[in-house]
Structures are given as structure tokens and as C-alpha cells.
């Protein structure tokens, strides 16, 4: 079901996929995706391996463009326009729709520069110290690093590095933050800290998170989209809804089987 364009301009949905297909060469990886992600909410994408959830996530900020054989059909509507339109600058898309990856990947720079560099490149003006502090505070990292900003980003623990990557993303003032299994490589405590953090972040950003951890999706998201692989090996959207409803009373039998761990 499509919405009118005004819904995504400043309205209820931050981003929307319409009749989206993604191909790698001749292989169709995901088919006919229709998905609306509400503004200032957390939407989780779940599903078994190979269902295309990461492909869908990457299509939201044109990261798939970096894969030579990748081709996207259909539309991703952001700010009232299709981000795949020829006149759209994908770099600008990725500034506004940032991404945090599974393995924390800070730059080989100081903690300060990790945050400041992207902002500088994107032409951010104003007090850089304030901007860095703001981003690190929003990422719940400031208190732990404020006295060692010149130390390398690599000196931090895994969980801290991931929060540094979140701060880096925040520093360029995105609207939407995409997270591809952001806590898979982290210990349980670091995982829960990130989950707490995204509850805070949604006040200012829209979050879309891929996770293979169903309990995480249940704990940490407002809406959940369940994907599955069809017999033609293309991923498709099975069910999408309010997280509480989906996890207590899913509409689709396949969803029930997956979230109760009977397949996957």
C-alpha cells in the first residue's frame, strides 16, 4: 500500500519503499517490497538468513550502489522524492540516512577526529568542539572519553567503538540512522547499552535496525517487519506491524513459526 508523497515529506513516515526489487546481476534478491517506516520510531527488520533484510536496509541509503552488479527497481521515497532518481546525489543521501555496521569500524584517528572528520568534510560550520561533545553525549559516550579525546578510536572497547561510530553518524546530522546488526559483535552488556541508547536516539532520529536476534527486536523496536525467502530465493515481506502485536499475536502463520523458533 503506497502513501501519498506528503506523508514522507515531513509527515508520519520518514522513508518508504514502494514496489522495490533489488537484483544482483540476474538474481533477484528481494521482490516487491512495500514498507513505511514511521518517523521517530524504531523499525526492526527480522528474518532468517538470506531473506534480504540487509539488502533492504542498504537500499534505504543507496549503499547497494557500491556493489557493481546491484540494480534497484521501484522507489524509495524520502523527503517526498525517490532517492533513486537520476538527479539525486547518493553521497548526500548517505549523509542524511546514515549507517552503523555490524563490526564497529572507527577511523584510524583519534576519538575526536572520528567524530569531527565527517562533519568537516560535509562542510559543517560552527564550534567543532561543541559539535563533537554533542554527538558523543547523544551516543552516551562523552563521560567515558571526555578526558581522552586525543586517544585513538581503537583504544576503546568494542561497545565503546560502536557508540563512537554512532556518534560519527550523528555528527553529520542525519534524519535516519540505519543499523545493520549493530550489536552482533558485542557482549550482552554492551548490547543492552546500545538498545537503551537507541530508545533515546529515536527522539531525534528515525532508526531502522536489522537484527537476527528476535528478543532484541521485541525489546528494542516499535515496529517490526518480518522477511522470508520465497521458493524462488527472493526475499519478500511477510508481515509488518506494531512490535507488541507481532510478538504477542502475529497474523501470519509463518511469522508465528519464525518468532517461536520453529524454523529459521
Amino acid at each position, binding site marked *: 500500500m503506497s502513501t501519498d508523497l506528503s506523508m514522507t515529506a515531513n509527515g508520519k513516515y520518514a522513508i518508504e519503499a514502494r514496489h522495490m526489487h533489488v537484483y544482483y546481476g540476474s538474481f533477484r534478491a528481494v521482490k516487491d517490497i512495500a514498507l513505511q517506516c514511521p518517523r521517530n520510531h524504531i523499525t526492526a527488520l527480522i528474518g532468517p538468513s538470506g531473506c534480504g533484510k540487509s539488502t533492504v536496509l542498504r537500499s534505504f541509503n543507496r549503499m547497494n550502489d557500491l556493489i557493481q552488479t546491484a540494480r534497484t527497481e521501484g522507489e524509495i521515497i524520502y523527503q517526498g522524492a525517490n532517492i533513486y532518481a537520476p538527479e539525486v546525489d547518493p553521497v548526500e543521501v548517505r549523509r542524511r540516512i546514515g549507517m552503523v555496521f555490524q563490526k564497529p569500524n572507527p577511523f584510524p584517528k583519534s576519538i575526536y577526529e572520528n567524530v569531527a572528520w565527517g562533519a568537516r568534510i560535509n562542510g559543517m560550520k560552527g564550534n567543532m568542539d561543541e559539535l563533537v561533545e554533542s554527538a558523543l553525549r547523544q551516543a552516551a559516550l562523552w563521560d567515558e572519553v571526555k578526558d581522552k579525546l586525543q586517544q585513538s578510536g581503537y583504544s576503546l572497547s568494542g561497545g565503546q567503538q560502536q557508540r563512537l561510530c554512532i556518534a560519527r553518524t550523528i555528527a553529520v546530522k542525519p534524519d535516519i540512522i540505519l543499523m545493520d546488526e549493530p550489536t552482533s559483535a558485542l557482549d550482552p552488556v554492551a548490547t543492552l547499552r546500545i538498545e537503551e541508547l537507541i530508545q533515546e536516539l529515536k527522539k531525534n532520529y528515525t532508526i531502522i535496525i536489522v537484527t537476527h536476534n528476535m528478543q532484541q527486536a521485541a525489546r528494542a523496536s516499535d515496529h517490526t517487519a518480518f522477511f522470508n525467502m520465497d521458493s524462488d530465493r527472493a526475499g519478500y515481506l511477510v508481515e509488518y506491524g506494531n512490535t507488541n502485536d507481532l510478538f504477542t499475536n502475529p497474523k501470519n502463520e509463518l511469522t508465528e513459526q519464525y*518468532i517461536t523458533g520453529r524454523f529459521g
Partner: protein
Amino acid sequence: MRRDRAHSSRLTHHKRNKMNIRENFDRDLQALQDDILEVGSLVQENLVKVTAALTQRDFEQSRKLVKEDKWVNKRRIAIGMEAFSLIARQQPMAGDMRLIAAVLEIIGELERIHDYVKGIGHINIMIGEEAIPANLLELLPEMAELAAEMLEGALDAFTKRNSELALNVAKRDDSVDKLYNKTYKRVMRYMNDNPSEASFEMAHRVEWAAHNLERAADRVTNICEWIVYLVTGHYKEVQHETYGKG
């Protein structure tokens, strides 16, 4: 004699794959379900037995049934603890979660229904050698049978995961209410015609026994509501007729 339904009850709320990757969990859920059926069967039988003991003035039987309440209370706690353990260990979702939730609610209701059984047993013993007029006791066995049949129907609906069946059982509560109201009027008339302390005490206790049976049927209705939640994912209170009608 406890009816053993374990052999006939099987979880049917999900399809089984070639390899059941949650075999242990499924086994534990099945065991919880069987526990409910075991306790439910006993409660069902004892509702009828304790009422018969009252009408037949069988104090020995009443004492025996009062003692059985200890077992019911122990099972309630044990089943509850097992349910908590499954929640902690297995993080149940969707239908599994609703099953555990329904089990917790149902075992609570069953325990309270058996408290009513125990209450009726005590009433028989407390009335003691005082004679009870036949017309005050007349409708109680039918109330007990109806409540027991309702409970049997509810347990059947639980096993079969059938919300229609559960709702039909809940509707039968009105019949029990009608019999209670009739008994209440008889007790009031008797007390009016026999104004002595001993008569009042006996009649009041008989009325209380009838009230226990009426409340037992109400609690079976609650069980039915949780079965509907288990099956459909939606909780809705079944409308009861108010007291005083019929």
C-alpha cells in the same frame, strides 16, 4: 479417580517441522498443559463429590475432600514456578507466550474453585448434626453438575484450542446463576418462617454453599475468557447476567 487426559492432549498450535528445533521447550509446554488437565479433572470431580457429601451429610467424605485442597495448592505453586522458569529460560513469544499466560491464569482459577470445594466441605462439617430441609439442598447437586460440566467443556476447549467451544461454555453460567437465585429465595423464605439462631446459622451456611457453587461457575467463565485469549490473541470479558434475575 483422576481422569488422565494427558494421552489425548497434544499441542496443535504450530506445525511440526522435520526437525523440531524446540523439542525440549515443546515437551515442557505439553507438560504444563497436562498439569492443567490433571488439576482440572480433580477439581471437576470434587465439585460434584463435595456437594453430594453435603446433601448426603457424609462428614467423612467432606473431611477427605477438605484435605485434598492441600494438594491442589501445592500443584498451583509448582505449575506457577515451572511457568516462570520457562519464561526466564525460553523467552516465549506469540502463541507460546499466550499459552503460558493462560496456564498461569487458569491454574489460579482452578485453585480458587477448589477453595470453594473446601468451603463446602467445611460447611457440611460445621452444620453438623443440625438437620437441613430438603428444599434448601435440592438444587445444589444440579448446580454442581452444571459447574463441573462447564469445567469439563472448558478443559476440552483448552485442549482443542477452540474459542467457539469456550464461549459456548461461558454462556452456560446463566443456568447456574438462576439456580442460585432460586436457592437464595428459598433460604430467605425459610429464615423468615423459622426465626431462630440455629435455623439462621444453618440456612446461612447452606446459602453460602450455593454461593460457592455459583462462584465456581463464574470462575470457569474466567477460564473460558483466557482460552479465547490463548486462541485468538484478544481478551474479551463474557457478559454475565446480573444477580437477582431469573
